């Protein structure tokens, strides 16, 4: 009888490190195909529409770009924080607060024109995201409160703040009572960069942000510090890296980037604040960060993969009547398989003969 056992690798496998995300996506396709066939859909078409149509139909690329942009920006920030073992789960809240600050600037400058309005909105968005992330950072460093809980809970508070502002002080005078802010003036809207499409300035910004983060993380002392603190906290302390300072940096970077994403999203696709603004980009970006192996370059790829499932999910609804929930099932399957596959990075499966296994036991 053949037997297998898990054996710890002397050092993490590079092949598996980059191979498992790909395997997770491929396995998701196969399992998704089987699953949806089993419940009476055309499984092959489902996988094709969700994963391939967005890629093969050039008209869908613009959708991929604008859907991936916020995921990449937030995912990049989260990958920096997670590298340092700082678990900021509240990117959604920082994203919302960033968007609200940007909305505030847009409304204050309403009717004005000037090139400075958008940069000001971006600064406000980032500053607000950082400020919001500094609450869990403060609580963690001063009182040792778990940042997972505090950052998550602040997300819910931020949603209520949207409702308060758009029902009261920011209510659109032209909106016949609908709780939404007024439409931003031209100067507060992100310009389209490719005429005739809906691709806005946020898309190239997302790629640039990820590239800068990659450079910083792999080539600078800051990046080294984040990686060391995450990988070997004791060695880091010994090496003189302050843990408190690292937590602050991680939260500020991830919060600031989430705030930037919020600004880009409200000034780009939305162009006003509405109650439907929170669409869980901040949570989906957690999947993006992990699928991208906490590497900003990987995050770009992962952001696009997640965007494909969103856009493809909508295609599949109209073409083969796949229910909306299917998208969520595919995304969840991907993360699950990825995390399950992670064991192969540090362990390997060894086939052992019965005699040998007796000896080993």
């Amino acid at each position: 009888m053949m037997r297998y056992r898990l054996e710890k690798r002397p050092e993490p496998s590079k092949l598996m490190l980059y191979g498992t995300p790909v395997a997770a996506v491929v396995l998701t396709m196969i399992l998704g195909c089987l699953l949806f066939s089993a419940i009476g859909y055309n499984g092959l078409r489902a996988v094709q529409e969700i994963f391939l149509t967005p890629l093969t139909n050039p008209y869908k690329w613009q959708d991929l770009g604008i859907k991936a942009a916020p995921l990449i920006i937030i995912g990049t920030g989260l990958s920096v924080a997670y590298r340092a073992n700082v678990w900021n789960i509240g990117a959604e809240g920082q994203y919302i607060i960033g968007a609200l600050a940007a909305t505030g600037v847009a409304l204050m400058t309403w009717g004005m024109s000037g090139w400075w309005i958008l940069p000001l909105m971006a600064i406000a968005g980032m500053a607000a995201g950082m400020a919001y992330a500094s609450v869990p950072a403060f609580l963690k460093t001063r009182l040792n409160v778990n940042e997972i809980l505090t950052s998550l809970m602040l997300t819910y508070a931020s949603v209520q703040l949207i409702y308060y502002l758009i029902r009261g002080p920011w209510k659109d005078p032209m909106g016949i009572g609908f709780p939404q802010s007024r439409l931003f003036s031209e100067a507060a809207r992100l310009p389209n960069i490719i005429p005739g499409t809906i691709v806005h300035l946020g898309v190239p910004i997302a790629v640039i942000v990820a590239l800068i983060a990659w450079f910083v993380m792999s080539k600078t002392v800051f990046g080294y510090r984040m990686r060391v603190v995450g990988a070997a906290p004791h060695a880091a302390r010994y090496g003189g890296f302050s843990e408190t300072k690292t937590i602050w940096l991680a939260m500020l970077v991830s919060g600031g980037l989430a705030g930037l994403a919020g600004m880009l999203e409200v000034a780009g696709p939305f162009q006003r604040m509405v109650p439907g603004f929170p669409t869980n980009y901040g949570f989906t970006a957690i999947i993006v960060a992990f699928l991208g192996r906490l590497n900003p370059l990987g995050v770009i790829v992962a952001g696009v993969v997640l965007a494909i499932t969103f856009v493809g999910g909508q295609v599949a609804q109209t073409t083969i009547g796949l229910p909306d929930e299917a998208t969520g099932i595919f995304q969840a399957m991907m993360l699950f398989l990825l995390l399950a596959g992670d064991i192969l990075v540090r362990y390997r499966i060894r086939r052992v003969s019965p005699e040998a296994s007796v000896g080993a036991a």
Partner: protein
Amino acid sequence: MTLSRRGFIKVGGAAMTLPLLGGAAFGQAEKLKIGFIYVGSINDNGYNYAHNQGRLYVEENLGDAVETMFVENVPEGPDCERVVRELAQQGCKLIFATSFGFGDSVIKVAPEFPDVAFEHATGYMKADNVGLYNARFYEGRAVCGVIAGHMSKTAKAGYIGSFPIPEVVMGINSFVLAARQVNPEFTITPVYISTWNDPAKEADAARAMIDQGIDIIAQHTDGPAALQVAAERGIVGGFGQGADMSAFAPETQLTAIIDHWGPHYLASAKAVLEGTWAPGDTWEGLKEDVVQMGPYHSKVPADVVKAAEAMRTGQIDGSVHIFTGPIKDHTGTERVAAGVTMTDAELLSMDWYVEGVIPPA
């Protein structure tokens, strides 16, 4: 072969327009594709379910002449824009956007597809190829109000609303005006939950209001969650909204307001097939059978059924209009003089509560 990104999108865009041209050239010989966009799930057994019933009604009546497709759970924001475009690109020549918050997206995309007919439910923005349609839900609310006025022991009702837009405010006002004709002490407390469909929030709001002493519940959200809580807590009763929800609360639903969109959808589809479609602005109710009342529960006493029927038939033959003065607002100021009936324009911009409404904080 090298191809710049911009060039590729151009080529792709040109390729995409080919099927559209083809469709136009072949004209009526091809099936009319009709797209529907729903804000919630077609399984909500309420608002979206009712719209989907309308879609099926068109299919039943026109058979092979049409092909329908739908996208559900579409958030009110940029995602809707993508879906509208998606449906138009797939060759839909008639697209129904069935929720208020889809207005921005439809108005944005419609000019890109001048040969597509768009219809937006419950909205207020028209364009050359964007028509509006709505139902006089408030007529059904008045019938419910009569029953509530008779049957409530505490003379207090709760009302779960989504957003304080005129359509919702109008329904609350209609309900309480009718109830106060029966019992001048009757009051209603609205709660807004900032979403059309979130069973957990609907249920929480219902519980909170029942704890405060209401014994009748009504809702302007999409599902039966509030009715189920009413059943669980054993209060006097509630009303189905959008569709007959008696299956979910057989002992609690006193009657239901049923949206019957089928005839309207059929008329629009026929108009497009015959080439006579023009952007309309319809607002039909009980008389046109677009709004229907569900069966009265057996525990509603005969004299109450009689009063409710009088309200229903009166609105059908035009002898009763619930918004006929004198009407005071919630502060006691007279807003509509005796004998004067509010105009449709006044109703569609209604942003004040009538006497008997306890405004939310």
